[in-house]
């Protein structure tokens, strides 16, 4: 069996048992990258500094990740390695410091092999908003991989990295995971440090793993979860060993199925597949009940106010003074500012900055921003109450499977792709997307499990169980260029 098809957990075990050498793993993966990357275009930059000849297994023997490769989204700061956010604004920006997650991976003995493509500044649901090129869904040449962590999802799905980190502000890990047939977890807000994650919307952003199975999600959470004194919004608490929750056991789990979500416009095949998965969980001993929640459309509306408001402020620093793009030949300071931002930002980023500036501007704050923050309270309370009774709330991850590149032109139509993922960020709770089937075009379908604050282990156990019960045995997508 080809090594690039193996999961991180498998590879780790094989290394420990000395059944394989680190070199062989890297060789297999780079072979795969060489073959499929020209088609998939998952990476913005590959880490050229890894010298395979000098890779000494002994250095990693005592580490948790054993020197295994990890891909990360290009919005996490890497010292001496470009961090572009797939934006022209930061095309040549090389940070002088590492994000906390990057340090954690390094300390755990992981090697960052590359920076993955994304929607510019994580704004989008298709990775078409990358200033460089769109990424292609490995399951369908003309399909988007989802977004904004589309590069991470595609890299994992195509066997170019066993695991990858993404960031999730309104579904940016779970939606591409669902589109690409991989597992993706958005942890509780405050579980993983945001230090070094280039901010889109600070009160919603969270880093999480994407992988080919739940085992690897648990493994990566063991590495990245935890307090960070550099991030005031990171919560100081102890986390369990998540791999201990890799148990096929949902006996006694109480699962809520939100009526309001399933009444929405969802592809029949998606709905069917998700309901089938729910039935399987019920068969395995879980209790399933229908529940009422605040409509997801309200969460989406609140999201587009809060996220864009924060973004308009977070992205104001790109002014051409200290780093990044600067427009040339500007006559004066103000021209330099506006020209730089005109040239450096893509259309979607500008649109969101405009919306965010508008909702915060004098006279509108109460009507929009304050109102959205109040709705946020309603949604959060809703979940808090539900989780007093239920262990999980389940929905489709997305209403459809991967759409075609160039298909969605209208911004609102694109925003609707996040309808089921956004409420989770608004409430700050964790959620995981797990593959639950394929549609008739052979495109993956994902199911979303949502849990209470800081109960990632519950999600991991349920997701693991579901993975075992469904036993989808996802093979690798046919990629034309494969040799």
């Amino acid at each position, binding site marked *: 069996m080809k090594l690039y098809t193996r999961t991180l957990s498998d590879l780790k075990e094989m290394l420990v048992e000395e059944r394989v050498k680190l070199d062989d793993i890297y060789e297999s993966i780079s072979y795969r990258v060489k073959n499929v990357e020209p088609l998939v275009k998952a990476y913005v930059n590959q880490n050229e500094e890894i010298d395979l000849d000098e890779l000494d297994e002994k250095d990693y023997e005592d580490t948790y990740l054993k020197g295994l490769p990890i891909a990360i989204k290009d*919005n*996490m*700061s890497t010292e001496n390695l470009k*961090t572009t*956010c797939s934006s022209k604004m*930061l095309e040549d*920006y090389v*940070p*002088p*410091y590492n*994000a906390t997650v990057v340090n954690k991976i390094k300390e755990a003995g992981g090697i960052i092999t590359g920076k993955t493509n994304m929607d510019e500044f994580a704004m989008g649901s298709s990775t078409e908003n990358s200033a460089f090129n769109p990424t292609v869904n490995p399951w369908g040449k003309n399909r988007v991989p989802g977004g904004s962590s589309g590069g991470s999802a595609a890299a994992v799905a195509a066997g170019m990295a066993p695991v990858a980190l993404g960031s999730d502000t309104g579904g940016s890990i779970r939606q591409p995971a669902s589109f690409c047939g991989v597992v993706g977890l958005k942890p509780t807000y405050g579980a993983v440090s*945001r*230090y*070094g*994650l*280039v*901010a889109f*919307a*600070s*009160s919603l952003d969270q880093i999480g793993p994407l992988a080919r199975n739940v085992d690897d999600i648990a493994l990566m959470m063991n590495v990245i979860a935890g307090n960070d*004194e*550099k*991030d*005031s*919004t990171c919560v100081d608490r102890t986390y369990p060993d998540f791999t201990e929750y890799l148990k096929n056991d949902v006996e006694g789990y109480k699962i809520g199925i939100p009526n309001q979500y399933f009444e929405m416009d969802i592809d029949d095949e998606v709905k069917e597949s998700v309901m089938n998965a729910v039935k399987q969980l019920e068969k395995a001993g879980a209790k399933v009940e229908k529940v009422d929640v605040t409509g997801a459309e309200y969460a989406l509306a609140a999201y587009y106010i809060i996220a864009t*408001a*924060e973004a*308009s*402020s977070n992205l*104001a*620093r790109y*002014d051409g*003074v*200290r*780093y990044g793009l600067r427009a040339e030949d500007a006559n004066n*300071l103000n021209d330099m*500012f506006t020209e730089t931002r005109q040239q450096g930002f893509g259309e979607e980023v500008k649109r969101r900055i405009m919306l965010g*500036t508008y909702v*915060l*501007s*004098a006279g509108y*704050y109460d009507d929009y*921003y304050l109102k959205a923050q109040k709705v946020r309270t309603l949604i959060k309370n809703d979940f808090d109450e539900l989780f007093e009774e239920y262990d999980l709330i389940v929905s489709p991850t997305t209403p459809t499977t991967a759409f075609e590149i160039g298909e969605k032109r209208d911004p609102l139509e694109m925003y609707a792709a996040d309808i089921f993922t956004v409420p989770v960020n608004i409430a700050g709770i964790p959620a995981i997307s797990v593959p639950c089937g394929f549609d008739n075009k052979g495109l993956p379908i994902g199911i979303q499990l949502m849990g209470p604050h800081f109960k990632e282990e519950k999600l991991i156990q349920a997701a693991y169980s579901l993975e075992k019960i469904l036993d989808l045995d996802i093979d690798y997508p046919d990629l034309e260029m494969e040799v």
Partner: protein
Amino acid sequence: MDNKFETVIGLEVHVQLDTDSKIFCSCSTEFGKEPNTNTCPVCLGLPGTLPVLNKKAVDYLVMTGLALNCDIASYSKFDRKNYFYPDLPKAYQISQYDLPLAKDGYIEVETEEGTHKIGITRIHLEEDAGKLIHEGSIDKSSGSLVDYNRTGVPLAEIVSEPDIRTPAQAREYLNYLKKTLEYLGVSDCNMEEGSLRCDANISLRPRGQEQFGTKVELKNMNSFKAIEKALAYEQKRQRKLIDNTDEIIQETRTWDEDKNKTISMRGKEEANDYRYFPEPDLVPLEINENWAEEIRERLPEMPSVRKNRFIKEYEIPEYDADVLTDSRELADLFEECVTEYNDPKEVSNWIMGEFLRLVNEEKMEVGDTKITGQLLGKMLKMMDEDVISSKIAKTVFEEMFHTGKDPEKIVEEKGLKQISDEDKLETIVENIIEENPDAVEDIKNGKDKAIGYLVGQVMKETKGKANPQMVNQMFRDKISEL
């Protein structure tokens, strides 16, 4: 005084809080370093960085609030103030908008008309911006250079109520504020280094009218004197406009120190829409009773309280107490010395006399001198014990002032010890008697004054080291024996 119109002034003071590290990162706040050497990813606003609040900045602000009789907010938060300028790396300043840490305080200043109460609207915590240096004048320069060393130095913004009625009161208010902050040790209030900055709002209204007139904002005053002058100028300018029934425009005016007048900044300062919203990267602050109480207990005695205590406890004149409590360091020096040498008035004389003379002469700050209360006390004891004369004491004092050396050591090293040895003095005394027959004759004839002259000769001979009382007695004894 203007009988028809009343002046209404409010002041906005920014003071840098004297923490070691910046408000949201661990960079040093030291002034005067090479450009951009006190910066890091956080204060440069690099993508992905996050602020973490410095506890001492909070403590200092709460101290300031308590000392200015404010209510301390039990729940407070930070907000972003959004605007573009090259000295603001994130293009927003982390500040406090609707929930400042302290509010509703007041101070009382003594004026010619008696005690005047000035309300403090609010005090909030925020970060300072960087420094922009224009190549040439701002209008003609080809570009500007940005230094971010100052970015992120903690600032307290102290906003007064429009309770100030004269430019002189404004100055009194500032003096009081400065003295208080220095006493607290939370800021050095150095206007030259920019650690205290002040903007003013000023308007006129007919006496008896409650509604405020159109206000003008004044900026760019670099000293308390300049603030007083700018306010006085503006007061006159507005009065003239009223007399001529011209309209007063609500605007920002800048003080031109050279031309001694305020100049309109029309057009240069557009009305800003700062789009404040809660800073999502920082969590709320809750100052509970314990925390506030802990800080209250650590508050030093305030200047006016200390002054009254000095008068009562040490029985020194009010004038002395006033001078001594002018700065916390001076008052500390005094008290430290009194515990060592229990003659408060004598200690006060030395501090107000020799000490302040030297401080002024050398253009030093009280805190920069090497002398301690203990050393001064020791020296005063040595005088009492006739180890040194009062003349020598001045020499010893000056040495201690500069070096902080022990007075005993100075006396020993420089051979300044008073000669109280009769054998040693006897020869000198006899020589002087021999050399001055006229004076001796005068003394014999009852002209006692001449003894002083003879003693002076001995002091000259011994370079001031002879014990004058002893020499005096010796002359009396010897001459009566002649």
